[in-house]
């Protein structure tokens, strides 16, 4: 017999149960935290803000290209084939979507010409053109 008495057997079993429960609990916690950081909702929120701020910081006659593999990969993983970025030129809002739904919108105050914002799903890029100097 491996263990000398029942008391030490109980102690080992209790420790094993404790380790399993702790591992499961903290595993779920880590999964939750990583989901918050890389979830579609967080990516939509962060990128809608970043792009809106970039638009407002651009000087006339410039072009910015965002390489966003995580956003495009998330959309692909969610089987989302719609517009990843949707600008409303009249109301000055940028909507980012990586999953079917409303997405996340943020306002920018610079006037952009229609067609200034575009994306390429294969290259995983979003391009913004601030117009003529």
């Amino acid at each position, binding site marked *: 017999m491996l263990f000398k008495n029942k008391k030490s057997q109980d102690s080992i079993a209790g420790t094993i149960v404790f380790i399993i429960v702790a591992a499961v609990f903290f595993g779920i916690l880590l999964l939750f*935290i990583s989901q918050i950081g890389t979830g579609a909702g967080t990516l939509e929120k962060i990128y809608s803000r970043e792009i809106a701020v970039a638009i407002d910081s651009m000087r006339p006659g410039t072009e910015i290209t965002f390489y966003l593999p995580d956003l495009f990969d998330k959309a692909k993983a969610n089987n989302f084939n719609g517009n990843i970025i949707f600008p409303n030129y009249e109301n000055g809002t940028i909507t980012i979507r990586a999953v079917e739904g409303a997405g996340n919108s943020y*306002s920018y*105050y610079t*006037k952009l010409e229609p067609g200034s914002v575009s994306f390429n799903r294969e290259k995983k890029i979003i391009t913004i053109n601030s117009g003529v100097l």
Partner: protein
Amino acid sequence: MKNKKATSGDIYVSPVLIVIWVIVAVSIAIGVIVFYNTQADTRLIEADALSTKILDCLGKDFNYLDITGNEFDLFKECNLNSNVLEKSDNYYIRLSLNDIDSGKIVYDSFWGVGVISTQCEYQFKENKIEPNFAQCSKKSMLVADESDRKYLLEVISASNQK
């Protein structure tokens, strides 16, 4: 004296311990959510970019009569979207022109939500950032008209977009 139960193992996964773990987990989750929300707060950058944009636009090729004239349209002049800045209740812009020689304010006007001005004044006065207030930026530039009369062009911009 040793507690006999404490060595038996099953005490490790007690209800008290589960409650402690839940408190730890909830605290960490709240911390992570607050962290990501703070990271996504771009109001100060927006306000700063707006001040810079207006100063760049009006300070370059400064024309005193353009700004002080009745036809002056800040949004058109600086390629800004009035739908966002005037109608969204999230922004505030104050533009003033101070004659350096006389010390008089020759132009003073604001757009957007007037209430935000109080929040800006408080933060400027106390020289601190209040996270619950709109975030403000103040910038100025020395400009001169055709007759070389000097003015201080000052812009206060604020964003409260969340």
